[in-house]
């Protein structure tokens, strides 16, 4: 009979640092830590939670949004302020952003892949339909003050407050359905040392907004702001732009910015596919 090897004697740097850390963070909270006392101890170590990556869409168990948010909170809680990177693929509420930003003063990287709360009503259907037929996006006229945008506004405020509280933030990667130029400008000003800002948005409200943004950005020091949007571009070598309607003036502005190497405007469509409301 083979000698029974006691795996619990494995050094923590292998079991915790190398193996358990690679498991899905949702799984760690909901099952891995229940395996045995030793694993539970390892899973409570703040070192395990310096990087948090939680994806609602890859969960094997169905969670309500509230439950999932609580799981994220628990993970953040366990990091004991040591959190450095966080990537969330789920709807992020203002409350959650508050929770994270108040507890994670060392946070360097904030990635929010789906950054809006629930939207209902006609606009939602229109938007869904619009996603199904992407080519028809151009024809969507969404006006400020509509239910959709009211939701966005609360979400944005959450982000603005969060960014203010995170002095070490270097990377910000957010997907906002809609974001106002003022917000982006504010974020740019709040972060003293941005290395990578990626703000993806589907809609700019109008050419006017996009223009305002472009001119505001030119006064910012930060050089690494990327804006993705659904630009329908006529010419492939144009700098892609952050709005879906590219007007004459804006095009010129973007070109100038691009030439002075200040900003990169890009309108890749790659994120449009993984859509989730």
């Amino acid at each position: 009979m083979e000698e029974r090897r006691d795996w619990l004697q494995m050094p923590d740097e292998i079991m915790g640092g190398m193996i358990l850390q690679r498991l899905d963070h949702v799984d760690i909270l909901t099952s891995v830590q229940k395996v045995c006392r030793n694993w539970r101890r390892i899973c409570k170590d703040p070192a395990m939670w310096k990087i948090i990556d939680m994806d609602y869409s890859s969960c094997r168990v169905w969670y309500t949004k509230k439950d999932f948010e609580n799981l994220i909170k628990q993970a953040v809680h366990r990091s004991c302020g040591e959190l450095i990177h966080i990537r969330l693929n789920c709807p992020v509420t203002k409350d959650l952003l508050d929770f994270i930003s108040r507890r994670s003063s060392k946070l360097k990287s904030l990635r929010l892949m789906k950054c809006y709360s629930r939207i209902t009503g006609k606009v939602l259907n229109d938007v869904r339909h619009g996603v199904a037929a992407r080519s028809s996006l151009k024809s969507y006229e969404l006006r400020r003050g509509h239910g959709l945008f009211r939701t966005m506004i609360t979400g944005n405020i959450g982000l603005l407050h969060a960014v203010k509280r995170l002095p070490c933030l270097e990377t910000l990667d957010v997907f906002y359905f809609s974001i106002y130029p003022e917000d982006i400008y504010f974020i740019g000003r709040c972060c003293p040392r941005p290395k990578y800002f990626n703000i993806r948005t589907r809609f700019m409200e109008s050419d006017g907004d996009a223009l305002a943004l472009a001119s505001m950005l030119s006064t910012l020091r930060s050089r690494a702001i990327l804006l993705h949007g659904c630009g329908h571009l006529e010419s492939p070598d144009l700098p892609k732009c952050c709005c879906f309607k590219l007007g004459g003036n804006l095009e010129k502005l973007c070109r100038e910015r691009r030439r002075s190497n200040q900003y990169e405007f890009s309108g890749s469509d790659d994120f449009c596919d993984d859509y989730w409301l």
Partner: protein
Amino acid sequence: MSKKTLTLMSKDKQLFNIEEHLAVQSVTIRNMVKEDGASSVIPLPRVDSETLALVIEYLNRQQAPEEDEDYVKKFVDERGEIPTLLELAQAALDLDIKKLMDAACMKVADLIKDFTLEEVREALRIENDRTPEEEKAIRDEFQWAF
């Protein structure tokens, strides 16, 4: 470089020979060689002979550096048993062979990520050692969570 041979001794006192220039891929051995020339037998008290044979096989590979990544992946893939991989990871930790340790740990994580609780316990031969009080503590914690 002269082809000097080193002798490694496993936990169960088996001896393995390996050429020095291959053995020094292990940072631990490299340091030993630097310090005292490592003329005598190098004892590895935590590594059993089966695992050491695997490590030697890995060190003896004849691969160009650019194929190394693929090789180490294939190497651990062929040994898909969790206990073997954990032994290998532990040996690689002791010998400080980073690539091998990373690959072995990654493979273990890959294997157990889809396991249920019971399957994990079985595969790693772990007993559920939590007392009812601790079970309750976990549930209470999850009350907080949910």
